[in-house]
């Protein structure tokens, strides 16, 4: 069951110079969403925007009828959303798309997230915690600023390890430098972030025979499976919005899709 819901912005928190956590009120979405899913957001009156923009649900608090989005400003739509005044209403179509699935009992969940790819994992970590599962969370970013929500993951008792390209926090380098260590033992990988990172993680996981769920981003027109604008190549073009955004990483033919955005 999906709906086009009005959601009211109740709180905005700057996480870095270009990223914010936006908390919205909508009782329907807060209870209906599942970790990994996303929503297509339409802004009021924003200058010249036509299409909705897709955002992963970052967190959900069904009891408070709230959910949050983590927004990184990369263009007109993200900028307008991130600068919305508190109290503003947006239209959120959702929840859309596939979900992360719980790891088998014998597998330790390892989450690999780069930049705004961190977004879908807070809700998922909460779900893991509720199921009394521990997880390793590897966060990467260009600089310390980009390790969004690190403290929230720690507060959930996750084993958080960080890497920054400029070495300003955690290991120096890309998040992939942290993976080797984390893959010891039976593991279920989850990843989301920039395509080069995902490709690298996917290669490693495949080499090691590690199961790997990946959340992909593609330009989206409808989010409902109708425009075929968002496709990802498996053995054919499948829709990121409907068959994804969470895919079994082994099914993706990465070389068919060099510049997907």
């Amino acid at each position, binding site marked *: 069951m999906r709906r086009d819901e009005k959601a009211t912005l109740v709180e905005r928190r700057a996480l870095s110079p270009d990223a914010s956590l936006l908390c919205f009120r909508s009782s329907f979405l807060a209870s209906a969403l599942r970790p990994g899913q996303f929503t297509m957001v339409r802004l009021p009156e924003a200058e010249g925007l036509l299409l909705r923009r897709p955002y992963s649900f970052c967190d959900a608090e069904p009891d408070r009828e709230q959910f949050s989005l983590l927004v990184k400003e990369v263009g007109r739509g993200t900028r307008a959303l991130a600068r919305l005044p508190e109290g503003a209403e947006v239209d959120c179509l959702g929840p859309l798309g596939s979900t992360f699935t719980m790891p088998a009992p014998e597998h330790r969940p390892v989450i690999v997230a780069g930049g705004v790819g961190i977004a879908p994992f807070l809700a998922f970590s909460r779900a893991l915690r509720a199921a009394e599962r521990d997880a390793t969370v590897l966060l990467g970013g260009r600089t310390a600023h980009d390790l969004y929500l690190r403290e929230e993951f720690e507060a959930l008792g996750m084993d958080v390890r960080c890497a920054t390209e400029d070495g300003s926090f955690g290991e120096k380098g890309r998040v992939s430098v942290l993976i080797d260590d984390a893959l010891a033992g039976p593991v279920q990988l989850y990843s989301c972030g920039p395509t080069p990172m995902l490709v690298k993680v996917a290669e490693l996981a495949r080499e090691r025979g590690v199961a790997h769920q990946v959340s992909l981003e593609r330009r989206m027109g409808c989010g409902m499976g109708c425009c075929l604008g968002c496709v990802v190549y498996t053995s054919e073009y499948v829709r990121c919005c409907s068959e994804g955004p969470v895919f079994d990483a082994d099914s993706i033919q990465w070389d068919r899709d060099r*510049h997907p955005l």
Partner: protein
Amino acid sequence: MTKPDLSVTIAGIHFRTPLIAASGTFGYGTEYLDVVDYSAIGGIVVKGLYLEPREGCAPPRIWETPSGMLNAIGLQEVGIEKFVTEKMPRLCELDTSVLVNICGSSLEEYAELARILDDVDGVSGIEMNISCPNVHEGGILFGCDPNMAARVTEAVKKKTSLPVIPKLSPNVTDITAVAREVEAAGADALSVMNTIPAMAIDVETRRPRLKNIIGGLSGPAIRPIAVRLVYQTANAVQIPVIGIGGIASHEDALEFLLAGASAVQIGTMGFVDPSVWRKTLDGLEDYCRRHAVAAISELTGAVET
């Protein structure tokens, strides 16, 4: 005043409302079931079909432009066989008229599609996308040459008793020439218009925004062009015209009706706002009441020039 009659009949096909979902923007009809009020929709044109399944273009396939969007999907579709066995039964369960949009790379392919569809339950009519390249004649589009457009219309008409509705391309100097030829070739109605070829470039990477380089422009940006083409077409032929291009509100739909359309299709704006169907229909009903219009069909061509 009694409730205005918002239904229309085009080429013998009954549409309970004048709002039809445009091909390629409403999937195979059922995708929007939980978020759209289907009672506001008079008909659905399904995604364009070839004989065989097609993979479509490599991504990126879409891009937003000022008040519009570009797409180069490349007609990714399931092929006629799978459509008939898997998609059509579910479409039949919807209480709405179904038009099947067909595409071919030769006269024969169009004709064969028409032959197959003639026997399929639940199909109300055939919309012919003639913006497909004719591989036999050097890749020229059927739709941009009046003579070729007429030949393909004729070929399709021969194979089916269903109403046949060519969908015209805006990419011509004189749409009335094409319209008159396909009318003479037996077309039962016309859909006006398809997207306009267009392009955008990412200046930082210097790469085209679409992998296919050129795509089709749709959305409100093109509406004034579409209204003009509907006006010109409706004044050139006797058969009904279905107006398409950037409709976002009942005022927009009314522009097309007044310009000469008997019904309209909505595409891009359905992506933006799934409630566009209900809002547009309510707006049309309200307009009819305010202007004492008993049947929406009275508005067709009622522009005062």
